[in-house]
């Protein structure tokens, strides 16, 4: 059994490194992104092997799914743009001249000490360390939830999550403030033109998948209190549903007008900050919840945060286009 586990882990890690190498060095950008998505899925398997199912869920939904969609959309826009500016089609020229080879070797040689230094640093750590597990288990009862990762994310270190929803909002504001880019084709029309021939299949898929995705998101949100899941996983699954609708050419902007979109995007940060201010005044510490109400407060916080995360991620995907409607 242990031999099987060893073999599996070894193959997994080799595959991970091999995929990373291929994704970074294949000549075609499209296959690089496809390999990167596969890399994200293997990463999710690695998280499962490391007994971190919460991270595996987040990685599968965000790291592999949403990042891949973002990258592919950007590549499509880039090719549409470069099509009428230069003849560069996104295929990089192979590094065959002397200079490029020299840079490659020089960089590899200079990175060897970095590699050995990091390996030495990790191997010199003590082999047995429990970290903060004991403290978490001792205080888990007071946190309002029984999943230690959710307890850390929304109670013990809730300020991390507070700052994180602001990072998301900040990224969205930064993207919107850059103004619209003159694209040849917007993502919505890419969805319409290239998929027009199969539209009935696509529509059926959307009809079937979007309600399922919404239910999965609600389940992940609810189950996060005592099992792997939570606001980020639920938010990213909802965002995936939005991306699917956008790609299928559904008029999502009629449902999510600019005003509603903005209100939903700031709802998470606003609720988080007001709860932080309230707990600072009432409890005397930032984001410290009274144990008897902690479970309810965390569920409320997670629900609003998940909606905000979903809307923000979907808006990040559709780029600088949401603000005009």
């Amino acid at each position, binding site marked *: 059994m242990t031999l099987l586990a060893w073999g599996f882990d*070894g193959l997994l890690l080799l595959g*991970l*490194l091999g995929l*990373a190498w291929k994704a*970074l060095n294949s000549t075609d950008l499209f296959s690089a992104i496809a390999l*990167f998505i596969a*890399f994200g899925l293997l990463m999710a398997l690695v*998280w499962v*092997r*490391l*007994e971190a199912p*919460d*991270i595996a869920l*987040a990685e599968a939904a*965000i790291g592999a799914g949403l*990042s891949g969609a*973002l*990258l592919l959309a*950007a590549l499509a*826009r*880039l090719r549409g*743009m*470069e099509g009428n*500016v*230069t003849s560069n089609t*996104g295929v*990089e020229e192979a590094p065959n001249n002397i200079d490029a080879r020299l*840079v490659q070797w020089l*960089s590899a040689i200079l990175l060897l000490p*970095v590699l050995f230094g990091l*390996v030495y640093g*990790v*191997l010199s*750590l*003590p*082999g*047995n*360390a*429990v*970290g*903060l*597990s004991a403290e*978490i*288990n001792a205080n888990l009862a007071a946190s309002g939830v029984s999943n230690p*990762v959710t307890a*850390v*994310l929304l109670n*013990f270190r809730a300020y*991390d999550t507070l700052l994180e929803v602001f*990072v998301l909002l900040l*990224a*969205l504001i930064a*993207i919107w403030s*850059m103004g619209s880019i*003159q694209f040849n084709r917007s993502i919505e029309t890419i969805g319409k033109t290239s998929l027009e021939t199969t539209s009935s299949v696509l529509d059926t898929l959307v009809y079937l998948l979007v309600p399922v995705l919404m239910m999965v998101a609600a389940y992940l949100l609810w189950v996060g209190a005592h099992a792997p899941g939570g606001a*980020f996983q639920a938010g990213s699954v909802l965002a995936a549903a939005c991306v699917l609708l956008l790609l299928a050419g559904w008029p999502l902007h009629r449902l999510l007008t600019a005003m509603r979109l903005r209100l939903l995007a700031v709802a998470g940060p606003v609720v988080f900050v007001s709860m932080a201010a309230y707990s600072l005044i009432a409890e005397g510490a930032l984001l410290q919840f009274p144990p008897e109400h902690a479970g309810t407060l965390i569920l409320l916080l997670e629900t609003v945060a998940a909606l905000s995360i979903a809307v*923000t991620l979907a808006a*990040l*995907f559709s*780029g600088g286009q949401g603000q005009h409607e």
Partner: protein
Amino acid sequence: MSSFSFALAGIGLFVLGLHALIVHAHLLRKILAINIMGSGVSLVLVALARRGGDALPDAVPHAMVITGIVVAVSATALALVLMLKLAAETGSATLPDDSPE
């Protein structure tokens, strides 16, 4: 397999990404490289959280990595828009070669 081998693979990913970040001129490739470096760092963090033997792994690094994944995707989205903006201005998504003439 011991958690150290996972940590070593994480270091491998970080160094591979750093190498690609240096040698590739195309910005999309650099964004991929930074993402892979980030995955490597997370892998080291979570692998080292499991050093307690049979006990449950430490949940604090897990929470940090989940936060990190969401931050990474928003940074990636911003970087991609910056790249598109640059390509719209200059017609190319590669960094200019500013070697002296």
